[in-house]
């Protein structure tokens, strides 16, 4: 019973972390839109006095448009993530899971002065819980980002042979994902570390 409660609590905590990060990002989007809308108002006052060149208006409105796109991306990822527990077992496209995990972990990485690169040219589909696959990938990305810091970007790559998600820190940086081995097992996978800066989530036959 305690194990079930602990596991449920860990899942909730992960949901909380993802939501807190996304809403913090959205606050920044709104703050930028707010400031640039205010700037447009200021510039309109200048225009009334004939002291304005049109490029300043274009620049401010372009910033607003960029932030609308940024906000749309955050909400889309959050919505994708919110639907991951809808079914316990489904076909999980590893490329989609990698992109979602990278997007959800981007702010965590940014706060550690690193970034996340994705390579989804090769992919495979596995049968399982998308929520658990994404949770596992995010967990490893966070450990890798914690270790990498300013050494360079971390990466996540989907591969078809083996059927896996590979998470890597820059060479010379080591990280240990073994604490997430039980989570990998519950997601129908195992963790394989062929080098100190590299951990692969290897899935069984699709």
């Amino acid at each position, binding site marked *: 019973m305690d194990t079930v409660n602990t596991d449920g609590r860990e899942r909730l905590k992960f949901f909380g972390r993802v939501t807190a990060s996304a809403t913090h990002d959205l606050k920044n989007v709104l703050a*930028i839109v707010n400031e640039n809308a205010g700037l447009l108002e200021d510039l309109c006052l200048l225009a009334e006095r004939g002291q304005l060149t049109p490029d300043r208006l274009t620049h*401010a409105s372009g910033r607003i448009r960029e932030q609308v796109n940024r906000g749309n991306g955050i909400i889309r990822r959050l919505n994708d993530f919110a639907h991951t527990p809808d079914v316990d077992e489904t076909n999980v496209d590893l490329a989609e899971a990698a992109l979602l995990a990278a997007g959800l972990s981007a702010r965590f990485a940014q706060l550690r002065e690193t970034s996340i690169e994705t390579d989804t040219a090769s992919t495979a589909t596995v049968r399982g819980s998308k929520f658990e696959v994404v949770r596992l990938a995010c967990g490893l990305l966070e450990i890798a980002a914690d270790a990498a810091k300013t050494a360079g970007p971390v990466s996540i790559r989907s591969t078809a042979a083996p059927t896996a998600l590979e998470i890597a820190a820059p060479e010379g940086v080591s990280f240990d994902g073994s604490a997430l081995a039980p989570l990998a097992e519950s997601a129908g996978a195992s963790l394989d570390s062929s080098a100190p800066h590299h951990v692969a989530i290897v899935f069984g036959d699709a």
Partner: protein
Amino acid sequence: MKILLVDDEIELISALAERLSFRGIDADWTDNGDQAIELARENDYEVAVLDVKMPGMSGLELREHLKAIKPEMRFVFLSGHGSEQDFREGSAKASSYLIKPINIDELIERVKNA
């Protein structure tokens, strides 16, 4: 009045600096703590407006560095959420604390009264 703005969101801080300039406040800005420290060494800022949560050095850590350089400098903090922890840590020593998105008139009032 000369102030320093520090936030890792460049599009936010640059627009804010421009708006403050229209209102007679000379605001330098940067998106990171290290450059903020350099700017503080080279300039005399009355007030620093700092984002609480930034990559690398947090706003609260930055405040300690800036106070060591310019003990008379006063501070206003910006936060995305205003979590209880942020508020507790930030408001204990800060002159003021604002939640994003901010109202520029309120910011100016806080800066002037900091």
